[in-house]
C-alpha cells in the first residue's frame, strides 16, 4: 500500500477539544529527511510526539516497515531517537555518565552506536566529559542531548527544535550530522524555526493540514 519505510495516513491530532490538524499524510524513505514548518501553536510538537509514539493520535495510522506502530510497540520505539524540548539529561550525572547509561539502557546488545567518548568528541564536549551535566551551559546541554543520537544509532531521528541554544558552528555541525545520518540510509524529521543548510531535506508545511486556524 505504502512504499515508504515510515508512512503516515490520515493522521489527526487534538489538543484539548481543538483539532490541530487532520488527514495528514507523510512518507519517508531511507535517506530522506523532512523539515516540518509552520507558525507557533500549529501543532508541530504534537505531531512529532504522535509520530514517535509518545502521544496517541485521534485518528489515522502510522506504519513502520509496513506494520502498524501500535502493533509493534517497543519494536518501533527501539528504532526511534526523539529529542524534544527537554534535553533528557540528568544533571547530577556527568556528561559521559549520561551517555554511557543511555547506551546501556536504550540499546540492545550489538546495536550500540558510538561510545560515549567518541560521541562527546563529535559534539565538541570532550573537555566536559567528567563535569556534572548541570554545570554545562544551555548550548552544551543541547549538544549533549544530541550526542545521544550518535550513541543510540537508531534509524529514525525525530528532532524538535534541535538547534535551540546552539551557536553558529554547532548548527553547522549538527546539520552535517543529520546529513551523514541520511547518507547512511537514516530518516529524520526536524522541526525548526531556524534556517539551516542541509542538501536533500524536503520542506513540509504543516499548515496545509490545518483547516480551521485561529
Amino acid at each position, binding site marked *: 500500500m505504502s512504499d515508504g519505510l515510515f508512512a503516515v495516513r490520515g493522521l489527526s491530532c487534538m489538543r484539548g477539544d481543538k483539532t490541530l490538524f487532520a488527514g495528514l499524510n507523510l512518507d519517508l524513505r531511507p535517506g530522506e529527511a523532512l523539515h516540518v514548518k509552520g507558525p507557533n501553536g500549529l501543532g508541530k510538537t504534537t505531531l512529532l510526539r504522535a509520530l*514517535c*509514539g*509518545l*502521544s*496517541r493520535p485521534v485518528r489515522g495510522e502510522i506504519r513502520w516497515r509496513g506494520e502498524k506502530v501500535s502493533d509493534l510497540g*517497543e*519494536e518501533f*520505539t*527501539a528504532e*526511534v*531517537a*526523539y529529542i*524534544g*524540548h*527537554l*534535553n*533528557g*539529561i*540528568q*544533571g*547530577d*550525572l556527568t556528561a559521559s*555518565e549520561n551517555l554511557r*547509561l*543511555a547506551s*546501556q*539502557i*536504550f*540499546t*540492545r*546488545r550489538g546495536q550500540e552506536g558510538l561510545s560515549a567518548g567518541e560521541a562527546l568528541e563529535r559534539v565538541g564536549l570532550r573537555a566536559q566529559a567528567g563535569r*556534572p551535566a548541570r554545570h554545562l551551559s544551555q548550548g552544551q546541554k543541547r549538544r549533549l542531548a544530541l550526542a*545521544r543520537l550518535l550513541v543510540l544509532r537508531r534509524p529514525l531521528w525525530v528532532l524538535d527544535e534541535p538547534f535551540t541554544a546552539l551557536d553558529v558552528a554547532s548548527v553547522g555541525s549538527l546539520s552535517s550530522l543529520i546529513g551523514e545520518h541520511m547518507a547512511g540510509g537514516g530518516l529524520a524529521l526536524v522541526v525548526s524555526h531556524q534556517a539551516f543548510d542541509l542538501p536533500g531535506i524536503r520542506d513540509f508545511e504543516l499548515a496545509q493540514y490545518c483547516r480551521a486556524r485561529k
Partner: protein
Amino acid sequence: MIADLLGGMRAVFVRELLVFWRRSTEVMTALVFFVIVTTLFPLAIGPERRELMLVAPGVLWVAALLATTLSLNHLFASDYQDGSLEQVLMSPYPLSAMVLAKIAAHWVLTGLPLALLSPLLAIQMALPTKAIGTLVGSLLLGTPTLTLIGAVPAALTLGVRGGGVLVSLLVLPLYTPVLIFGAEAVAASAGQGFASVAHLSLLGAFLALALSFAPWASSAALRVSLD
C-alpha cells in the same frame, strides 16, 4: 532477548542508585523523618515502658509508612522535569520492566535503610527484644509493597499542581491493609497472642500482588501523564 532486558533493567537500577547517591539529602530526608517522628512519641507519652510498649508496633509502622509516602515524590518527579522520563518511554524494553527497576532502586535507598534502622528505634519505644526480628521482617516485606503501590499515584500526579499532597491523599487509604497486618505482626510477637507467621505470610502475599500489578499500572499512568 531476556539477557538484554535484564541488562537494561540493571542499567536503570545503577543509574538510579548513582543519581540518588549524588543527592543523598533527598534519601536522608525520609530516614531522618522516620527517626524524628518515632522519637517524638516517647517524649509525648512519657517514659512509662508499659504504655510505650503498647503503642510501639503502631507508631513504628505508621512512621515508616509516612516516611515512605514522603519519599514517593522523588520517584519520578525529577526525571519528569528534565525529560529523562520521556526518553524512558522510547526504550526498546517494556516500560513496566523499566519502572520496576526504578522502584527497586528507590526501595533499596529508602525502604531498606528504614527497615535496618528500625531495631534502634524499637529499643527506644520499649518494644520487647523478641519482637524486633518480626519488626524488621515485617518492614522488609511491607515497605517494598508500599513503594510499589505508591508508584501508581506518583506517576499519575506528575505535572499536577500540588501533586505531592495529592499523592499522600491518594496513597494512604491504599496503605491501610499493609499497615494493619504489619503492625499486627509486630504486636503479636511482642505479646503472648497469636503467632506472627500468619501476618507475615499475608504481607508476603500483598508484596506478590503488588509486584504483579504495580509496575504495569504505574507504566500505564506514566503514559497518561506524558501524553
